[in-house]
């Protein structure tokens, strides 16, 4: 059985239908890229999977790890192993990165029936993952994402992912706004987290990220539907020909 099974998923935002019947099946260990032009519904799909209540699912089903995902609260999805790296990470003044991460990790552990980590063990994990993301430790004591540069925010997302060790990671346009050096660091972090026990959905507008995070499958989303699926070479084709013409295949 696949880790994630999406069937005929329809979703609205503010009464407008964005997703118009998505079917997608993802197994552990696989990396799926979802590409498509602006407004095609890529980010909506990511948000719906993470439980953002701005979006209303109007039809279809999503089964994650044998459970009805759409019935679960956002926090329960996270505790069950879903992690979304935000396109626009939220600034939270007054909450330190360290406190936030500890609260998150312990919430996930509690759900798994594990005891809270003691301060020393927690710090050891955090330091190890920070090194992976080449992050300055001073970021731990700063408020979550507050005053971070665009690159620091994106790195912080992947850093959180490395600490929380999800089963399904969804990267929502993690490459947007990154210069090439930051992109390489982020991609290296993501690659280090690839594992047979973990699936990833990489949502991106550009093929560039996929040079560094090489997907197993590529899906093209247009007008709320997947119009084409293929291997990693599909991304290269899109780089050549662009999205023009693909919208028509949805009809």
């Amino acid at each position, binding site marked *: 059985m696949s880790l994630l099974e999406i069937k005929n998923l329809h979703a609205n935002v503010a009464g407008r239908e964005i997703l118009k019947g998505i079917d997608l099946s993802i197994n552990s260990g696989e990396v799926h890229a979802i590409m498509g032009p602006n407004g095609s519904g890529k980010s909506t799909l990511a948000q719906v999977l*993470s*439980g*953002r*209540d701005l979006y209303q699912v109007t039809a279809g089903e999503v089964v994650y790890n044998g459970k009805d995902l759409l019935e679960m*609260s*956002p*926090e329960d*999805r*996270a*505790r069950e192993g879903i*992690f*979304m790296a*935000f396109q626009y*990470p*939220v*600034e*939270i*003044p*007054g*909450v330190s990165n360290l406190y*936030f991460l500890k*609260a*998150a*990790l312990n*919430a*996930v552990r509690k*759900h798994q029936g594990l005891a809270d980590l003691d301060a020393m063990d927690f710090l050891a994990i955090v330091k190890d993952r920070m090194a992976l993301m080449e992050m300055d430790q001073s970021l731990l004591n700063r*408020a*979550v994402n507050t005053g971070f540069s665009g690159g620091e925010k994106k790195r912080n997302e992947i850093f*959180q992912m490395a600490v*929380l060790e999800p089963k399904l990671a969804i990267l929502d346009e993690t490459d947007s706004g990154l210069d090439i050096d930051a992109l390489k660091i982020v991609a290296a972090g993501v690659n280090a987290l690839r594992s047979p026990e973990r699936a990833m959905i990489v949502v991106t507008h550009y093929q560039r990220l996929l040079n560094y995070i090489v997907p197993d499958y590529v899906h093209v989303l247009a007008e709320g539907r997947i119009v084409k699926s293929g291997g990693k070479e599909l991304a290269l084709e899109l780089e050549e020909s662009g999205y023009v013409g693909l919208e028509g295949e949805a009809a």
Partner: protein
Amino acid sequence: MIERIREEARQRFSELGFPTTHDEDWRFTSVAPISRTHFEPSGAGTLPAAASQAASGVEISRLSQANVEPYLARYASYANNAFVALNTANFEDGLFIHIAKGAVIEEPIELVIQSSANGHPTVSHPRILIVAEPNSQATILETYTGNGSAYLTNSVTEIVAADHAVIDHYKLQTESARAFHVSTLQIQLGRDTNFRSHSLSFGGGLVRNDVNAVLSEGCECTLNGLYLVNGGQHIDNHTSIDHAKPHAASHELYKGILEGHSTAVFNGKILVRKDAQKTDAKQTNKNLVLSEDAVINTKPELQILADDVRCTHGATIGQLDTEAIFYLQSRGIGLADARNLLIYAFARDIVDRIKVASLRAQLEKLLLEKLHGTRN
């Protein structure tokens, strides 16, 4: 001498009577529930308990046993404030805290004012006079707490800080839910003093705090405030900063958290007198409103008569950031915890400014208890 002042204050109160909402200073706070109630004087238990033990350089005595004539009632004016007049006419034997010239007192001087009422409504008028001699340093912590049914605590604290004194004043108010609490903190600052007030209000049904500071040349005066109200609580914070002389700075930050159908008032007056050039005054009031029914009235009141000054003020009223709540949830943190974390974060810069570790810990506990209590 005290008897003469008492008599004057008694007369003044009979002329003034209790304020009504027609008085500009009391527009949003009706004290009718106080004026309608017949209070009986409470027993001796309401006297401020003497501080644990006085370090060297501090003297704590009863007002009746000290020579307080140069100070007592000379700063907290009973001419225009009915509650100050009432306190002055009726205060039980209050406390006089004297900090010697050049003394540096490391440990906070702690005063606990405990009220209680069983059956009949009772009233107490705690009175504290703090005199800090030149170059002295001290931290004073007043805690107002109580239990039982309706009672009125009507306190007046006068602080007189001489030149170069450094004073930290904390007031923690955790009165019982049905209590009336009215307080005036009157601060007279000498040259180059550094004064910080932290007003932390959690309890009481009807609460009014007045904090009035008069600044001399080169003063640095900080007024911090935090209020957390829920249910049907009403809190009114009136502050007044009088820049009487040049080159003084004042920083004011009051933050409020409102739930239920609570109401809050913030009125921040800043007066910059004509010769108070180079004044630097900053006032901020931020409110986090967590329910549809809570109401906040916030008003800056700036009167600037000098021309070479910097004065800024700002007030905000906001809700919890739904994006931030979702972000926390998406990392596994439950909805209630996410909300509490954000509320705590809102209050955090006030908490962080508290230098007394035990008080900071107590405040964190109070915040969490009250937040959880509201949600259960």
